[in-house]
């Protein structure tokens, strides 16, 4: 009898290749698992991935204006700024016809975009448009389009208006990102700092960082003992304490924020008590709200549960015997805490820290309400441009940077702590 051993491929008893058979057997399960998550997947794609993708595209998109003034921009690129003070005649001519024949709504949209590049464009073009239409109606053909333009409004002879075209002449533009970092393009298309009075984003970014870091640290300092207590108290006390931790969670964010205004304002509860106790005089009431301090206090309180809960979930499973064992081995309680307990809470600290930081960096309502002028965070600018100036490109760029920062932090965190170490519950 001869025995053949196949080294190439394992077969099942029926002679089908083992891998193929396994795949077939697992296919049903895989399909079922996929069908179970499919609604959620669809939901996430429609409500999360697509809008974010759309916003990120908007942050670099400049195609609308390019579809309104294609010829003008094409001619504009031929302008040698070193040789001529103003653009060549062809540019004026193209603009003349594109304004005369263009779709009114599209031009309106483009004007808004032009106004971001330089304020004043909107009214200049509107006035010019009217005049151009009169000229076209009369059936005259201007001898010099340039002179006609300058005759309509002297600003057409001002090269700074023309320079601002620089940031719009391409379908894709990085200008919004530079704007979000207080930078713009000069006449040669190089990146330069904005005028001093227009620089506000870098300052806000730095403040956003500072506030987020402080809030994270305060949350850790306040949350750690609470989480420890929660994890170690007998059940009936810890349940009560847990309700105290979660109660603010269940209260509306607006209610909590306005409650802080009531507490902290100059005629508020805390100032009232301090005056009544004689700690401060009636004139010396402390300004605790509508500034950065107000933002810090309110955000710390609101984000505290996000620190306590992951910490608690980690601390709960650290056996009590570990502290005992450390002391039994000769470590004083402080040493036992530092060497044995604290290292084991790192997954909780990092999870809570990351959670609080990421939430804080994009926080909007609370800083908006209690922050006043110098407690506003970057979220406020995003909302401002989204609702008031309708500069969605800048909005998207600010959001894109925020997203980028979070991804960088996530990456750093994964490098340093390891993402499998995270423990949320």
């Amino acid at each position: 009898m001869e025995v053949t051993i196949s080294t190439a491929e394992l077969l099942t008893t029926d002679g089908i290749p083992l891998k193929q058979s396994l795949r077939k057997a697992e296919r049903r399960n895989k399909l079922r698992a996929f069908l179970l998550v499919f609604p959620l997947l669809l939901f996430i794609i429609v409500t999360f991935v697509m809008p974010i993708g759309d916003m990120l595209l908007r942050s670099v998109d400049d195609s609308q204006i390019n579809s309104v003034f294609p010829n003008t921009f094409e001619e504009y690129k031929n302008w040698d700024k070193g040789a001529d003070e103003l653009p060549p005649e062809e540019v004026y001519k193209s603009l003349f016809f594109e304004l005369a024949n263009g779709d009114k709504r599209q031009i309106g949209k483009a004007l808004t975009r032009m106004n971001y590049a330089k304020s004043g464009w909107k009214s200049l073009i509107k006035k010019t448009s009217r005049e151009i239409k009169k000229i076209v109606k009369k059936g005259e053909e201007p001898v010099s389009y340039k002179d006609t333009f300058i005759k309509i409004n002297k600003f057409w002879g001002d090269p700074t208006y023309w320079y601002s075209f620089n940031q719009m002449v391409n379908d894709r533009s990085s200008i919004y990102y530079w704007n979000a970092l207080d930078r713009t393009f000069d006449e040669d298309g190089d990146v330069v700092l904005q005028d001093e009075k227009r620089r506000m984003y870098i300052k806000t970014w730095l403040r956003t960082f500072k506030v987020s870091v402080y809030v994270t640290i305060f949350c850790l300092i306040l949350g750690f003992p609470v989480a420890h207590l929660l994890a170690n108290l007998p059940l009936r006390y810890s349940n009560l304490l847990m309700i105290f931790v979660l109660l603010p969670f269940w209260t509306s964010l607006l209610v909590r924020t306005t409650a802080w205004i009531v507490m902290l304002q100059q005629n508020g509860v805390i100032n009232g008590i301090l005056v009544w106790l004689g700690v401060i005089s009636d004139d010396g009431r402390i300004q605790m709200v509508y500034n950065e301090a107000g933002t810090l206090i309110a955000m710390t309180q609101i984000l505290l549960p996000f620190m306590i809960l992951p910490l608690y979930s980690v601390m709960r499973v650290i056996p009590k015997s570990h502290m005992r064992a450390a002391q039994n081995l000769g470590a004083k309680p402080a040493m036992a805490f530092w060497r044995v307990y604290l290292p084991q809470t790192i997954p909780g600290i990092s999870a809570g820290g990351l959670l609080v930081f990421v939430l804080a960096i994009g926080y909007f309502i609370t800083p908006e309400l209690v922050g006043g002028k110098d407690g506003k965070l970057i979220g406020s600018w995003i909302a401002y441009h989204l609702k008031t100036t309708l500069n969605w490109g800048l909005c998207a760029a600010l959001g894109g940077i925020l997203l980028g920062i979070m991804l960088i932090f996530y990456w750093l965190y994964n490098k340093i702590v390891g993402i499998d170490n995270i423990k949320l519950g």
Partner: protein
Amino acid sequence: MNDTSQSFVKFEKIDKSYDGEVLVVKNLNLDIAKGEFVTMLGPSGSGKTTTLMMLAGFETPTNGEIFLDTKPISKIPPYEREIGMVFQNYALFPHMTVAENLSFPLEVRKISKPDIKEKVQKALDMVELGNFGTRFPAQLSGGQQQRVALARALVFEPRLVLMDEPLGALDKNLREQMQYEIKHIHDRIGITVVYVTHDQSEALTMSNRIAVFNDGVVQQLSTPDILYEKPENSFVAKFIGENNTLNGVVREVNGSSCTVELDGGFGMVKALKINVNEVGEKTQLSIRPERVSIDKTTSDSNNFSGKIEELIYLGDHIRARLDVCGNNEFIVKVPNEGSFNHKEGDELKLSWNSEDVRALDL
């Protein structure tokens, strides 16, 4: 050994209560000599772990004093007691490697780096885990973790080692193997060990002496053989080993022996008088299964008969459950010598020596 001047660990009139209403440990007096292996054995809730925790310094005695090496230690915090301890679930620090776990007690004692390295290696070699220093506890099997915990409790050369049910989480084979290993390590380095368990075979295997706890009181403190062969009360008789009981009333007392009339009119039994004092007292008779003879008669007139209720074949012996004098849980172990040919339902002749029957409290 009971001489106070010689005892290394001494519990003196220890009471312990957690809530001020229930005493968990009542009037505990216990002396442990240097180098001894003493086991506290008892069911859960009997106060044995509490006693151990008081010795380790994690619980304070409500009354009384514990002496270690003739010095009172109630006021000394646990980290200054120099007592090693093996915890129930080992309490190995999961974020440290095995070697770091072992170095920890040496580092906090500010021992020099080279010395630490040497001692750690020696301790690991002792438990035969010399090459496992760089692993993390989670990468070890239960038995290996157990050995690391043991090595860590010994590495800083404590005056005394406490073990709180250290083998409870292991499977049966490993548990037996570890029992011998712990016993051998104890024999080799001669350290004093106080061991807590609820497993009587573990206690019998390892200990020099065993303190049987029940209800916060030490019921009997003795060597394993005396505890098994001469239990002083019915709790110890029942808790250690297998035990047949017959209830009755003392009818006659004659020096160290007595005669007991069994309840239900099954006759009279001659027994050793252990825990009864006078005629008319109720008593529980205790007979070990292996001391009951089949098909023989004794001159002590302790001759009875029983109906076989159940036969269980166990290889080296046959375990017979009989109905004897109204007790249908009466166990007899029949050695498998090939001559036993009774069936369930048969009547057996039983007999035992009066020295093997102990009249205990009820």
